[in-house]
């Protein structure tokens, strides 16, 4: 009969109170694990989304991230093909890499001059094969991710994909089959009329445009001179964020380079690096710093969290909510166990006096009550974890979906509890520590009881 056995029997002795306390702890553990699992899924889902879109790391001109949006062409990376080859051939870096692909961003004006409308846009030239490889990344085995290729796959070199907002403004909803696209009220023109040479662009080769959705993209060349490209819009795609949806134009990299650099040596805004595993980011970044050191261009490496500030904002928000829930539940557990132990001390005062009379030291009494708290904590953690695993399985198989911020498609609502050993362990240890702490004060009080008074207790 050791202290733990005695503690266990004391807990079983008052079944109803023990079960009530356990129930409070189990509900707490389930709440923390289910919300934690949801938070974990959001965090990994966001990471997966960003890594599939913009890679883990990007090599950029030193000033591109802060100043590049004003004039992307001015911050291009020269000789990018050689640099990509160097990275892919590096014996330390290459095993970590999954995809290395370039992108070129540009600012410009897209016009549907047949309808007499135009708008400013932000274009991105991409290597279609590279983009499709990026979208295969699924290190966290997320369920329900879109599996299709990028819309530019298999299209002509002058093809483009625009945001639905761009399609709406350029009055391309009909041919691009964009839903929710009402006809705007007529706006009285206040500016000067379009220059004749621009207005004449769509009619330059009217025969070639029959049956096509064509727009003109006017962009500034790296030298500052304007350049125009005729693009064939193959699709309008919802971008998830309206601000982006209203300006997005995606085109083939070669087309974008031709538009920005003309006959000059092509450059890119960034080299996108996708790693096999996110855990290799630090190692890859360190190696990249070594490889880029001393180069002729001022290049830096940015990670996906820096490139996508909303990642930190969203995960931070969820972490704050989870923290609040955990603190709230921790307080409930603290008071519930503390109350249970305090009642036990009062009820068992004579027993405490007897144990002390028989020769049990004060520390022995403390150990007995703390052991009861420990057993409550361990039982609550085990049962709560099991229940949370079962509940998570039910949720994950219920077919519930949700639309995350910034996404254009609904994804399955999942909670990641199974396999999240860190979270399970942290929750269990947290509960056990809280439970022991809650029992400590009543245990201390019990140990300090006057023996004679305790034996006289009615």
């Amino acid at each position, binding site marked *: *009969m050791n202290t733990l056995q*005695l503690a266990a*029997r*004391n807990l*079983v*002795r008052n079944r109803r109170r023990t079960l009530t306390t356990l129930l409070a702890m189990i509900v707490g553990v389930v709440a923390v694990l289910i919300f934690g699992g949801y938070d974990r899924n959001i965090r990994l889902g966001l990471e997966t989304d960003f890594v599939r879109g913009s890679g883990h790391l990007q090599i950029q001109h030193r000033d591109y991230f802060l100043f590049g949006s004003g004039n992307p062409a001015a911050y291009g990376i020269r000789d990018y093909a050689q640099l990509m080859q160097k990275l892919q051939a590096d014996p330390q870096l290459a095993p970590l890499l999954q995809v290395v692909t370039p992108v070129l961003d540009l600012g410009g004006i897209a016009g549907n001059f047949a309808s007499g409308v135009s708008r400013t846009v932000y274009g991105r030239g991409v290597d279609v094969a590279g983009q499709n490889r990026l979208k295969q990344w699924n290190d966290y085995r997320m369920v329900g991710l879109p599996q299709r290729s990028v819309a530019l796959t298999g299209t002509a070199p002058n093809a483009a994909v625009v945001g639905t907002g761009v399609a709406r403004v350029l009055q391309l909803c009909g041919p691009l089959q964009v839903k929710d696209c009402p006809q705007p009220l007529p706006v009285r023109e206040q500016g000067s009329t379009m220059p004749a040479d621009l207005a004449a662009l769509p009619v330059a080769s009217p025969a070639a445009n029959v049956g096509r959705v064509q727009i003109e993209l006017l962009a500034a060349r790296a030298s500052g001179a304007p350049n125009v490209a005729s693009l064939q819009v193959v699709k309008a795609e919802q971008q998830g964020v309206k601000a982006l949806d209203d300006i997005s134009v995606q085109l083939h990299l070669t087309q974008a380079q031709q538009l920005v650099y003309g006959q000059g040596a092509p450059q890119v805004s960034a080299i996108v690096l996708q790693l096999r595993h996110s855990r290799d980011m630090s190692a890859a970044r360190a190696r990249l710093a070594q490889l880029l050191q001393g180069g002729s261009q001022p290049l830096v490496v940015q990670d996906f969290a820096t490139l996508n500030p909303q990642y930190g904002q969203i995960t931070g928000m969820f972490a704050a909510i989870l923290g609040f829930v955990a603190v709230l539940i921790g307080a409930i557990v603290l008071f519930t166990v503390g109350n249970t132990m305090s009642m036990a001390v009062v009820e068992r005062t*004579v*027993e405490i*006096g*007897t*144990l*002390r*009379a*028989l*020769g*049990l*030291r*004060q*520390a*022995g009494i403390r150990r007995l009550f703390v052991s009861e708290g420990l057993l409550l904590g361990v039982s609550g953690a085990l049962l709560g974890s099991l229940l949370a695993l079962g509940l998570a399985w039910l949720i994950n198989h219920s077919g519930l979906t949700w639309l995350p911020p910034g996404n254009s498609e609904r994804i399955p609502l999942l909670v990641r509890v199974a396999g999240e050993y860190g979270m399970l362990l942290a929750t269990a240890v947290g509960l056990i520590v809280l439970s022991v702490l809650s029992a400590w004060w009543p245990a201390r009080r019990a140990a300090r009881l006057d*023996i*004679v008074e305790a*034996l006289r207790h009615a």
Partner: protein
Amino acid sequence: MSAIEVIDLSRHYRLGSVDVPALRGVSLSIAANAFTVLSGPSGSGKSTLLNLLGGLDRPDSGHVVVAGQRLDTLDDNHLSDFRARHIGFVFQHFNLLPVLTARENVEYPLLLAGVAAVERRRRAAELLDAVGLADRAANLPGQLSGGQRQRVAIARALALRPALVLADEPTANLDSHTGAAIIALMRDMQRQYQTCFVFSSHDAQLLAAADHAVLLRDGQLQAPAAVKEAA
């Protein structure tokens, strides 16, 4: 030869702002291997004296020597260890641990003393047999009658063969027939284990069975007289 020496022992309690003397300068010797009863009316100081003899309470002045050890020189931990080793207790309300079986209750003092499990079991079985409860070893206290519980308590008090067994009104919660049986058992055990038994009691049967009687009144010793010679 005395098992206990009590030297000028005083103990006061405070009831609100009133100072109540429970013991006033009591000095006495209690013989080893004897059956000694502390007698006196309610409030005479019997229980206070018993608590001080057992090291459950500390005197305001004076001191107690049990088995050659001055109790007032021991700190709480050492006093606990001393009680575990040298003093057995039998309580009016039996005070068995309700979650332990009869055998485990008897084993508990042995556990505190660090006796090995096999030896604990052997001694508990022997003691339960001696008090006539060998067949009740696996019963919880709640499954035993009052007399049986007190038998278990006596077995527990004797588990470590202590120098001293203190019993506070051990028959007060028992009917006269059971009380007589318990007195007979304690007397028998006292002889068998050669231990000093000290009781507080009003029970005439117990007084009659005692080797020595100590009469207390108003916290003072009235008649530390031998009733009969120690066996």
